[in-house]
C-alpha cells in the first residue's frame, strides 16, 4: 500500500486544480440534502456528507441519455458516445463497490460503449466513511465499508491531514505536480490505523448472519410467504430501483422533431417494479403481480448477480429503505428470511431426533 499525505488546508487548492482540467462531480451541499453534481470549488462540497438521494451512478449512466441521433431524409445515424475527463470526488465505499459491479455488467458480453467511455474517462476519488451515514445503511454487514480491489484514489480524514491511498496510475496522475502532497512517513501509518480502528465500532452489524450465506439463503426462499406479505404492502412505485446504486435496467424511446427530419433514440432508467416491465406484445405479463416483481428484485440483488459476477448486488447503502414509502427494507427482509429458515431447520432437527 502506498499512500500520501495532504494537509487539509491544501484541499481547496487541489480541488481547484482538478476543476481546471476535469469535470468534477461531488456531493454538493444543498439546504437540507446533498446531491452528486458538477462543482467548481471545494467550498461547494462536504466530504463528511451523510448520503445522497441518488447514487453517483448517474454520472456514469445518466437517468436519460441519447444513444444515437438520426436524419430521416438521408437515413444517417450517428452514435452519441460522449465523455469528458471527469473526477468523481467523495464517493462512499458502498457506491464504489456498486460501480465495480456496474463495470462488470456493462463490460460483459456485448460491451456498452456509452457507459464504458464515460467510465474510462472517470477517475474515482473515494472517501473512507468514519460515521454511519443513515439509520438504514448496513454497509458493514455487506462488506462494503472499505474500498473494493479497484479504485483510483481513496481519502481518509486524519484531522489536520488527509491520507490518500493510491489505487491506480490514473489516480496518481491527479496528484502529480501538486506540491502540498508529500509521501507518507513512518509516523503517519499509526495515525491512519488509529482512525480506521476507531471507526469500525461506530458502525452496527445489522445483518443477523454472514453475508456469504445470503445467496444460498434466498435461493431456498423462492416460495417463501414473505414475498406475498411484502407484495401486499409494496406500492409498485419503483422508487427502490431508482435510488439503487446497482440497478441498471433501462427502456428506450424514440423522439423526432416536428418536421420529422431528425430525431434520436434515448435510453432512460426503467424499473422491474413497474407493472408493465415484463409485458409482451400479445398482452401476457410474465410478472403480473407485485410480490413476483418484488421477489425478482431481491433475488436479483442477493443471488443472481452473485451467481454471475461473484459480487452481491446489494451494497447496503440503505437508500431504497429510506425511499420506500411503506418501509420495505432489504436488511429486515434478509433477516426475516434467515430467522424463518433457522426456525424451520430447528423444527426439522427436532423431528429427526
Amino acid at each position, binding site marked *: 500500500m502506498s499512500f500520501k499525505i495532504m494537509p487539509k488546508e491544501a484541499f481547496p487548492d487541489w480541488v481547484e486544480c482538478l476543476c481546471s482540467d476535469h469535470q468534477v462531480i461531488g456531493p454538493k451541499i444543498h439546504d437540507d440534502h446533498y446531491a452528486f453534481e458538477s462543482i467548481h470549488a471545494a467550498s461547494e462540497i462536504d466530504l463528511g456528507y451523510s448520503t445522497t438521494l441518488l447514487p453517483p451512478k448517474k454520472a456514469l449512466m445518466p437517468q436519460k441519455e441519447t444513444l444515437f441521433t438520426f436524419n430521416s431524409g438521408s437515413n444517417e445515424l450517428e452514435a452519441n458516445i460522449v465523455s469528458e475527463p471527469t473526477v468523481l470526488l467523495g464517493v462512499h465505499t458502498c457506491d464504489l463497490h456498486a460501480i465495480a459491479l456496474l463495470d462488470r455488467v456493462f463490460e460483459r458480453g456485448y460491451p456498452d460503449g*456509452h457507459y464504458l467511455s464515460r467510465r474510462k474517462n472517470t477517475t474515482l476519488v473515494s472517501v473512507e466513511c468514519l460515521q454511519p451515514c443513515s439509520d438504514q445503511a448496513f454497509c458493514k454487514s455487506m462488506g462494503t465499508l472499505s474500498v473494493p480491489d479497484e479504485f483510483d484514489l481513496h481519502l481518509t480524514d486524519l484531522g489536520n491531514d488527509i491520507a490518500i491511498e493510491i489505487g491506480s496510475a490514473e489516480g496518481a496522475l491527479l496528484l502529480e505536480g501538486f506540491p502540498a502532497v508529500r509521501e507518507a512517513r513512518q509516523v503517519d501509518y499509526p495515525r491512519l490505523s488509529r482512525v480506521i480502528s476507531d471507526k469500525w465500532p461506530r458502525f452496527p452489524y445489522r445483518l443477523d448472519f454472514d453475508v456469504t450465506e445470503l445467496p444460498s439463503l434466498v435461493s431456498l426462499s423462492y416460495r417463501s410467504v414473505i414475498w406475498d406479505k411484502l407484495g401486499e404492502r409494496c406500492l409498485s412505485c419503483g422508487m427502490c430501483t431508482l435510488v439503487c446504486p446497482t440497478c441498471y435496467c433501462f427502456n428506450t424511446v424514440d423522439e423526432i422533431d416536428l418536421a420529422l427530419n431528425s430525431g434520436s433514440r434515448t435510453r432512460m432508467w426503467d424499473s422491474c417494479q413497474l407493472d408493465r416491465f415484463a409485458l409482451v406484445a400479445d398482452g401476457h405479463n410474465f410478472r403480473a403481480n407485485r410480490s413476483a416483481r418484488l421477489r425478482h428484485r431481491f433475488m436479483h440483488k442477493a443471488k443472481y448477480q452473485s451467481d454471475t459476477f461473484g459480487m452481491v448486488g446489494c451494497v447496503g447503502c440503505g437508500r431504497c429503505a429510506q425511499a420506500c414509502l411503506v418501509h420495505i427494507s432489504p436488511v429486515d427482509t434478509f433477516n426475516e428470511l434467515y430467522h424463518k429458515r433457522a426456525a424451520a431447520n430447528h423444527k426439522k432437527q427436532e423431528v429427526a431426533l
Partner: protein
Amino acid sequence: MTMPVLEKLQTPSVYLPVMAHIRQIRQISQTEKVLTIELPGGLSLNHEPGQFVEVSVLGVGEAPISVCSSPSRSQDSFEICVRRAGDLTGVIHALKPGDPIGIRGPFGHGFPLKRFRGKDILFAPGGLGLAPARSLIQQVLDERHNYGRVIILYGARTPSDLLFQEDLARWSQRGDVELHISVDRSDEDWTGNVGVITTLFSKIQIYARNTVAITVGPPVMYRFVLLELLGIGISEGNIWLSLERRMRCGVGKCGHCQMNHIYTCQEGPVFSYAQIKYLEEAL
C-alpha cells in the same frame, strides 16, 4: 453464437441499427405481413434458425422479431413476419418496398441443428409461432437427407389466421413431410380438423426415442403441448421451445427479458425443456 451484423460493421454502439431496406412485402393474413429485408452492401445476416433481430423504424421505436426464413434460402436477404399489434408494428405495416428499416442482430441462440441429425423431427407451432419455426423447417427441408421423418402439427385460431398458406400448401404436396393442421374455430369453407393443436397428436404415430420436438407458440399453449409431448414419450432434452419475452436491447443489459437470472435474449430464446423445467419464471 454467430457474429452480429453490428460487429461486422464495427459500429461504435451496440444499440446502433444498420439501415437495411425492404425488398418485398407480402400480406399473408389480416394482421400479418412478411417483409423481405436486404442489408446494405450485400451483407449477409448469417443467422441461425431461431435467432431474432431488433427491428427499428427511426422515430417510432424498436422491437425484437424472429427471423422467419432460413439462411439456406437466401444469403443476401432474410424475412420477418410482423403481426400488427401496437404502435411500432402498425407503422411497419404501413411501410412500402424500398423503405428503410433498421436492423440489429442476429441475437441469442438458435436451434441446435447438429443435435437433430438423424432424428425424426416433430414441429408443433401454434399461431404466430410458425414464423420462428419456419426458419428451421426451411433449413431442415433444404438438407432433408440429414433427418428422418418430418412431421408438422400446426394450430391456428381460425382458417383465416393460418399463416404462410403457400408454404403449407407446398409442404402438404411433398411426399416427405407429414402435415396436419387444425383450427380452434372453423368457418363455412373449412373441411379440415377443428380443435386445439393438442387434438392433432392422436393423428400421428411416432418413435419417441428418436424424435426431436420443436414447439413455438403463446405461453398458454406450452403447458398443454408439453404435456402431450412428454405423454408420447419424447424426452425433456429433445423438446425445444422458443420463448417470447420483451427483449428490449438484445444484448443482455436492459433487464426486460430476464427469467430469474437468465437473459432470454442471450441464452435463449431457444431452450430445451430440460434446460428450463426448473426455471420458475420460464413457463
